[in-house]
């Protein structure tokens, strides 16, 4: 016997798994990868308002103005598939990833002899999936194909013994014919499995070839096949794209808690714990915030994990609102550690990690790491690369080295920067500076070279512009001064 766990409207379900509150709202899912995106799946509320498969987003909105249009998310489908397989793996050692949202399980050796036992087992499997917000239908039958059909017809569990009676009324699409065969059957007016079975078998085989036989075999109780066995990956990841940009910690924490619960539950099923958590926040500016949490003492305790995240998030400041969130749990086996005689350790490594996180948070976001120059004309533009203590330093590319040399040649003199730049008053005659005054240097400008003009990012609030001058004072010392909308500054001294 075989069982199939089938998740109807899998792409939509994968999307709503982390946003169950949307279940009752009109939501339509588009396949935005296709050349002309149309609605492919939708919630019952959307259907009730006239939305249907095949409409464009504009057409769907024409019928239901408040329909929520969402796009397929490959990441969420991957996560949902992994959750499905990992859960199924806990119920049978032989499973197959049959199709998106369809997992076939072999029941041989599970001692499920009676319908009652089968039913209880199937219900447990379904409940496990439901706890992950995957509303599954479970079918059980003599062959994988029949079990798949049973699952599609199940409400929510169906055990099939008499395959022909069961299959006759099913729509022919349930047999999952190839698009070409489906198209042909539609042209022929064949809409049910019963109508298909009634056709002259040799005639059918003559026209559809092996495709026809394959279809008929799907409802034949005697034709089974070995499963393409898979072992679920050890990747535990959740991802969400927010409908509205997130600007405060509260909704972020709400989702993070859901993530942690989901991930912990998925790990529990296979008796693993969280060794590392990787957090990625996508910002509306296009930037991505990354943070890795090493769990000093691996655990799947939701509160511990969540507290660590909460500490970090409470002091997190991002440059732009958050538009998506990804979290990956890297599992490991629970550590059972015995220390050596002279080995010292922390009482609670997780607590220590949390403290470090607090300190990092206190310094401000992005204030820990290695500075890397940004490829832009904005002076001093840099970003901080998070510490990568394990990774070897990246080699400098040949071109980069040449560029560096070029810059050194261009500069000639070395500039000692003043951090921060010193406010300065500059007196101009015409367009040239003739006198400067600041707490570092004051006096008459003997010579000046410039202005060197630069400006950029005119397209939003970050716009900037500046005018640089190299000025030599009467004592021969050379300075770099800057005039910008923010004022005049002494930026450095040439050695």
């Amino acid at each position, binding site marked *: 016997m075989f069982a199939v766990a089938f998740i109807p409207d899998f792409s939509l379900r994968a999307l709503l798994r982390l946003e169950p509150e949307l279940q009752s709202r009109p939501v339509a899912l588009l396949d935005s990868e296709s050349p002309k995106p149309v609605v492919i799946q939708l919630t019952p509320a959307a259907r009730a308002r*006239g939305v249907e498969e095949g409409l464009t987003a*504009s*057409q769907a909105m024409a019928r239901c103005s408040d329909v929520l249009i969402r796009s397929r998310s490959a990441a969420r489908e991957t996560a949902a598939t992994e959750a499905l397989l990992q859960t199924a793996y806990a119920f049978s050692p032989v499973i197959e990833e049959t199709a998106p949202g369809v997992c076939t399980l072999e029941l041989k050796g599970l001692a499920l002899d009676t319908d009652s036992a089968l039913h209880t087992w199937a219900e447990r499997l379904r409940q496990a999936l439901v706890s992950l917000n995957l509303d599954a239908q479970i079918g059980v039958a003599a062959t994988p194909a029949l079990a798949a059909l049973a699952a599609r017809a199940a409400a929510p569990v169906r055990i099939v013994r008499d395959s022909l009676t069961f299959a006759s009324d099913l729509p022919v699409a349930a047999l999952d014919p190839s698009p070409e065969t489906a198209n042909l059957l539609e042209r022929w007016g064949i809409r049910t499995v019963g109508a298909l079975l009634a056709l002259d078998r040799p005639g059918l085989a003559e026209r*559809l070839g092996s495709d026809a036989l394959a279809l008929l075999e799907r409802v034949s109780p005697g034709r089974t096949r070995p499963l393409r066995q898979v072992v679920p990956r050890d990747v535990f990841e959740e991802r969400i794209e927010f409908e509205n940009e997130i600007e405060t910690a509260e909704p972020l924490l709400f989702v993070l808690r859901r993530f942690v619960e989901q991930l912990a539950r998925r790990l529990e099923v296979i008796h693993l714990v969280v060794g590392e958590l990787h957090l990625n926040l996508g910002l509306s500016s*296009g930037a991505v915030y990354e943070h890795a949490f090493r769990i000093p003492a691996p655990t799947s305790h939701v509160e511990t994990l969540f507290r660590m995240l909460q500490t970090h998030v409470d002091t997190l400041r991002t440059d732009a609102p958050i538009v998506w969130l990804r979290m990956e749990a890297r599992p490991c086996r629970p550590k059972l550690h015995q220390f050596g005689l002279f080995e010292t350790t922390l009482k609670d490594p997780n607590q220590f990690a949390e403290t470090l996180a607090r300190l990092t948070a206190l310094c401000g976001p992005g204030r820990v790491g290695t500075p890397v120059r*940004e490829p832009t*004309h904005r002076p001093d533009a840099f970003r901080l690369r998070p510490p990568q203590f394990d990774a070897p330093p990246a080699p400098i590319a040949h071109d980069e080295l040449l560029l560096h040399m*070029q810059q050194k040649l261009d500069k000639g003199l070395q500039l000692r920067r003043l951090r921060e730049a010193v406010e300065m008053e500059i007196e101009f005659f015409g367009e040239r500076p003739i006198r400067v005054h600041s707490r570092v240097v004051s006096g008459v400008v003997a010579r000046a070279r410039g202005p060197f003009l630069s400006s950029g990012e*005119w397209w939003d609030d970050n716009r900037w512009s500046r005018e640089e001058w190299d000025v030599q004072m009467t004592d021969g010392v050379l300075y770099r001064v800057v005039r910008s909308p923010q004022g005049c500054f002494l930026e450095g001294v040439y050695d």
Partner: protein
Amino acid sequence: MRYVELHARSAFSFLRGASTPEQLAEKAASLALPAMALCDRDGVYGAPRLFGRATEAGMRAIVGAELSLEDETVLPVLVESRKGYQNLCQLLTRAHLRSEKGKARVRWDELPEFAEGLIALTGDEEGPLVKAVHRTDLGRKANSNSPIETPFEVLRRLKNVFGSERVYVEIQRHHLRGEERTNNALLQLARAEGLPLLATNGVLYASVAERPVLDVFTCIRHHTHLDAAGLLLAQNNERCLKSPEQMVALFRDCPEAIENTVRLAERLEFTLENLGYEFPEFPVPEGHTMDSFLREQALAGARERYGHVPEKVRHQLDHELALIRKLKVAGYFLIVWDIVRFCRENRIMAQGRGSAANSTVCFCLGITAVDPLRFHTLFERFLSEGRKNAWPDIDIDLPSGERRERVIQEVYRRYGPQGAAMTANVITFRGRSAAREAGKALNLPNDVLNRFSSLYANGDFPHTLDLTAQMERSGLPREHPRAPAFVALCRAMQGLPRHLGQHSGGMIISQGKLSSIVPLENASMPNRVVAQWDKDDCEDLGIIKVDFLGLGMMSVLQDSVELARERGRPVDLAQLPQDDARTFEMMQSADTIGVFQIESRAQMATLPRMKPKCFYDVVIEVAIIRPGPIQGRLMHPYLKRRAKREPVTYYHPDLKPVLERTLGVPLFQEQMLEIAMVMADFNGAEAEELRRALSFHRSQERMQRVEKKLRAAMERKGHPPQMIEEILSAIGSFALYGFPESHAISFAHLAYASAYLKAHRAPEFYASLLNNQPMGFYSPATLVKDGQRHGVRFRPVCVLRSDWNCTVEDDSGDGSVRLGLCIVRGLSRTGAERLLAQRRIRAFTSLNDMKRRVRLNKDEWRALAEVGALNCFAAHRRDALWEVEKELREGDLFDEVALAQTAPPSTNGQAEKASPLAPMNYPERIRADYSAMGLTTGAHPMALLRPRLTGILRAADLPGARHGARVRIAGNVICRQRPGTAKGFVFVSLEDETGVSNAILSPPLFEAQRLLVTQEPFLVIEGRLQHIDNVTHVRAERIERLEHDTAVAVPSYDFH
């Protein structure tokens, strides 16, 4: 203190410059530059526009170009003499014609051949010299064995190619750190090699405000967005046009670099003033001149047209021929005549349109179909001494498609690929494309841009949402930090060139090599060569063009005539009765679906009020439904005067002779010119300026200038202010797409002829309409339904009877239209040809026989079966679908013999074994028809929905319903229109099984239900019924979707 900018790129460098040549010229003039050079990348695309505007501003426009070289450096060259210009054009042509579009590269070794008359600058940061300096800086030369040239080697190579006197070392200062290091190197190199220095600013935009556009263009070129573009973007905004004072100050340490700009500019004597263009001479028989031969042909044509040539005609011919001789344009007439003759000999219908219809010579030569003497049109409108470029302009309408292509290829064949070219069509950023590209560069979300696009008005029709409101409705709030930039960019980018296309039919030809006059490029279409200038530029520079315009209706007329002739009921379009009652009846009742020009919703709403009774009424009908007359509020006064609801008045008694034929309302371009001549004493040249302003859609400013002149002249003559305003308003709005009378007459000919054919040769007409799709306002499905309402029988596609095209079968009545194989979607032309070839050899006796003899793919067989084209061999469509799936055994001898002896085909479906499949029911057949053909010969989809529609009137019921009654109509939306002239009102046409009903939606209703109206294929509209002046429509108050599980929709014609 003088300075000349000698290195500037315009937006005609296609994404490498951000200002139009006109903007550059204006800015340069405002900065008091005495001259400037335009060096667009790999072409002289913007040169005519710079020349035109610079000349107006009293400035000299120097021609140049940046040449992309094979080593990916860019060499600017300036034109010194006409020889140099010819060399530049030929060099560019050679590089373009051997390359893919946009990838022309000049080879160093071909430069010497074309160097005469050209001056080389060493270029900016992309130039070969600066690149060599940078390479040397990096020390690559020293460390590698690669054959990279040193700066000295580059300079010597340039000197070898151009000569020492013709190479200038270019230096630029943009206030950037590090540039002085490069400039010092250039200075030393120039001194060492004894070459002059030349200061330029490497201008990329006219003023600093345009730098953002350049940054956006940079992003578009590099397929990135502003956040990621980083160092690709400009570091500052210094590459604008600068005043002589600024440039002198910048180069105060190097004054000779500034002085040299003036010296060099003085040396560059060539301008586009004298291109040396000559129209080809026409070879005439021995003993003839072109003039005498033209006279002979014109008189011969006159005898053919009139029989005996009346004195009036002879007099007019003498008058025209004298002017033609004086202007030395006889060759042009003969060449056009010869092309038209080629068309006639090859059975290709050709008809001159536009101002050529004012010429009796053109009429007698058979170029035009309109007798100017009959309509009293003015020859001087076509050709006069006073015109700046005295060349005539003849546009020839040809049947669109393959027949037009044959004519174009004949012209290429006669004048050689470098002697003839299509004129360019500059594709510019429009509202939607500007917004999309600006949005992408600003890294705005795709869905916002998609929504923005779908809210945008189609075509040229303005929409009621302003840019900011549209942006907000697309999901980009006004407060968004990038919103101001988005709006500013959308506005700034509008109208800037994006890339070069080819004009649909404008061709230019030249005596000698056209490639010496203007660079030529490959068009994206095979076997087409395109010039770098558009038709207006060519006209400005006196290059004669002939427009070969494809008109779908010309194909329809020609095909209809041929079908009628084949069926033994010929019709001569040249001899149509001009007073045919049935034709006018049809027009008066707006029964004009499929008729040229007068089938649109607006035309159909006017016809019952206009009630055309004679041919000239059709001319007015064609001319009056144009945005110009509508916007100028000229349409309603005309209709009221025609209906005698208001008196005929004139702006001024002197205008009575000018406006009498249009009841005091100016409707034609010629009338506008005459008004200017009468009321403002405009002379011929000024009237010509006005004519050109009226024809120039691209220049509002041009129109404003003429308007100012007109106003001043009328004021000088003491005309009352109100009258002046009325006249100016009429002329101003006319600039928006008003018709010349001669053009309207030509179009009215086609409109009348098509209406006549619809009335008297309906099967031939509908068959031809279907054969020439896509064209016109309506889908094939609508045309078939219209034909059926006119009693035409449409017979389904049949493999035993159908040809590739739709044909007319002789049966009862006028005959019926047999749908052709071309209608079947998915059946390839080659597959159909194989089928027809086999059928010609021997009729098919059975489906198996056909399958054996005709090789089609599975989809093609299925498509034929699905539309019932195989029903001659099967009991029903599914029977055929079952049979076509069966594989045939190859080479079965007994089968072959049996087949050869089989009796003729049985059409009762008993020949093959019946399938186990049930026949399609009626809705299934309709669905199959729409899915495989986009039309049905069966019932309209609305007929299937009708049983469950209650309280909904059919289109045919509306005329009988009470005015003011509250009614509901429903149907398939076949047309949505929101003309800019209708103040936001939307016109929606719904088709049902009885005809078409029309609804008018108010702007608030449309805005509230915009997506419903624009997206749903079937609608129910409720509102008040109005019968006004024989026009029936429903003023919509409520709109809802018509649910249609089984119905299939036809696409609508949308302008909203």
